[in-house]
């Protein structure tokens, strides 16, 4: 079996510092993050264009000037401050692909849907869970040029006037920091997988 390529660049994951974009609505589902009509693709290219498509553009295709990611003063925002229960709904990994394509590298919320959280981490997007007060403080920065820093190694988010600790699943965190990919880790367990299948076959089940 060949050595798997690393999906995360070796050299690991450095702190992200940028201005923030605020999208405060609760329960933003993955259909909102990228509508299903853009899923008829066989790769993940070009999805950034359609991140939050129906918030971003009018039905005639013209941009909505007031949406955070369209505003010229939000150019370069890599940290999205979102509402509660972000990423609920479908399991589409197209959601983090679209966010990544739109330059988002961390999302802050009071909570994330389970499947989205896992998908985000696999694509190097940090789901930062904070308390309501900290989230409110960060939403308030959505109109300013204040720089916010998300540091995965320290599991801290800092901004002028505040800072908070967050927790990322230790395994996913190590993978990102060390540039290890999960499939590579699983493949190392090949003997255990084969042994599991053999034990089952021996017990009379389907191998």
């Amino acid at each position, binding site marked *: 079996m060949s050595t798997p390529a690393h999906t995360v660049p070796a050299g690991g994951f450095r702190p992200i510092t940028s201005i923030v974009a605020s999208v405060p609505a*609760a329960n933003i589902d993955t259909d909102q993050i990228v509508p299903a009509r853009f899923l*008829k693709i*066989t790769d993940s290219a070009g999805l950034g264009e359609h991140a939050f498509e*129906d918030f971003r553009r009018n039905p005639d295709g013209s941009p909505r000037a007031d949406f955070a990611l369209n505003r010229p003063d939000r150019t370069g925002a890599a940290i999205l401050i979102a509402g509660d229960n972000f990423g609920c709904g*479908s399991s589409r990994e197209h959601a983090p692909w679209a966010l990544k394509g739109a330059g988002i590298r961390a999302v802050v919320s009071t909570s994330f849907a389970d499947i989205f959280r896992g998908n985000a981490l*696999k694509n190097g997007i940090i789901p930062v869970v904070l308390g309501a007060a900290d989230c409110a403080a960060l939403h308030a920065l959505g109109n300013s040029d204040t720089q916010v820093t998300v540091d995965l190694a320290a599991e801290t988010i800092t901004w002028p006037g505040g800072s908070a600790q967050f927790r990322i699943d230790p395994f996913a965190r190590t993978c990102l920091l060390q540039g290890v990919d999960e499939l590579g880790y699983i493949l190392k367990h090949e003997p255990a997988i084969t042994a599991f299948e053999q034990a089952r076959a021996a017990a009379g089940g389907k191998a």
Partner: protein
Amino acid sequence: MSTATAPRTLFEKIWDSHVVASEPGAPTLLYIDLQLVHEVTSPQAFSGLRRRGLSVRRPDRTVATVDHSIPTLATAVPDALAAAQIATLEKNATDAGIRLFGTKSHDQGVVHVLGPEQGFTRPGMTIVCGDSHTSTHGAFGALAFGIGTSEVEHVLATQCLLQQRPKTAEVRIEGTLQKGVTAKDVILALLAKIGVGGGTGYVFEYTGSTVRNFTMEERMTLCNMSIEGGARAGMVAPDDVTFAYLAERGIDKTELDASVKIWHTLRTDPGARYDHTITLEVSDLAPMVTFGTNPGMGVQVTGRIPDPEHVSEPAGKSTLKNALQYMGLTPGQAVQGQPIQVVFIGSCTNGRISDLRAAASVFKGRSVAKGVRVLVVPGSRAVKRQAEAEGLDRIFLESGAEWREPGCSMCIAMNGDEVAAGDYAVSTSNRNFEGRQGRGSRTFLASPLTAAASAVTGTLTDVRSLA
């Protein structure tokens, strides 16, 4: 093993028997018995395998179907993008030796209708699919959940998945449903109670007299929408209802009898502990409809649209306000009587034969109201054949509804079947998110009975009020 004697939940039994490795500081490596793949969430996973020079480890534990982007008109051809996606799946499956239910298959269908119906879904299994409604298969006492495309690749390559052990919640449902009230109404009532994030981090086990009295198809409807409450999986312990259903799937009799002995042990032991318990009493339940933009925003059809001014918590108030604005509904208005333009009967929630029978029982001898478009989309070709054998297609057509080919269709609106902006649809599917059924579409989720009753009156209707 000492754990073998301690009382365990159904979830724990299945989880424990699938642990391949468990290293400190890493999630559990879990063996996956069955992976279902469809055209939308798998192409990038197959490309990933090729980039790494890996092959599919267990094509015999993998089943592929096309459902999301295929047209539902026999004469229609998919657009270029959809065609490429379908061709990619068919090639990937064929090259890897994966059993394919493709466009030419006699039995093609929506992945979560097809798996159970073709006998792939069995009690005690771990089942995954790059699709959040994989929770459906939990109806058989399997641990079944949706995964992302990276994980689809992991399972294709290794038949294993790294998983953090979720928490467990017992969802105890008690009571006898009134006539006209269905499993769909029960799950919508549960979602209205717990909200769309209420189950995040949990696996649900549905228990109680209502669930025990459900058929397999009703259990599938219930488990299907577990994810709408945030629970990645929902499960029902297998019983004689399950075994009787499986006995009709063409499984070898000796194999089945041996399996049933083992499957009988798949139940939560007395004294086993769940992390959380939710209870729901359904004897007084009326048919449910959603009024908002997530499946947790549901009311009884006999009720009224809630008023944001009565919500004290600011975030909840603004969420409700935004939802009503999108839906164009007035706080306090009666649910019944709200005009609708489209009715969709189908999907992995309610596209099975019993759902079509229920809808047909309402359409029989009645006509679709003027100005209403009704799409009836069977969940699979097997469901379609059965419906036609029973003459249900003629009932739909005579009432003025359209009878289509199987697929996801208007549930996800990828294939051209969509609701026009601003129009109202009553849909038996599972998601009423903004734009889910087409940009600007407004969705009322409901049961097949409610959908059919609304189709014949042209307004949201309590099926029990039809003469």
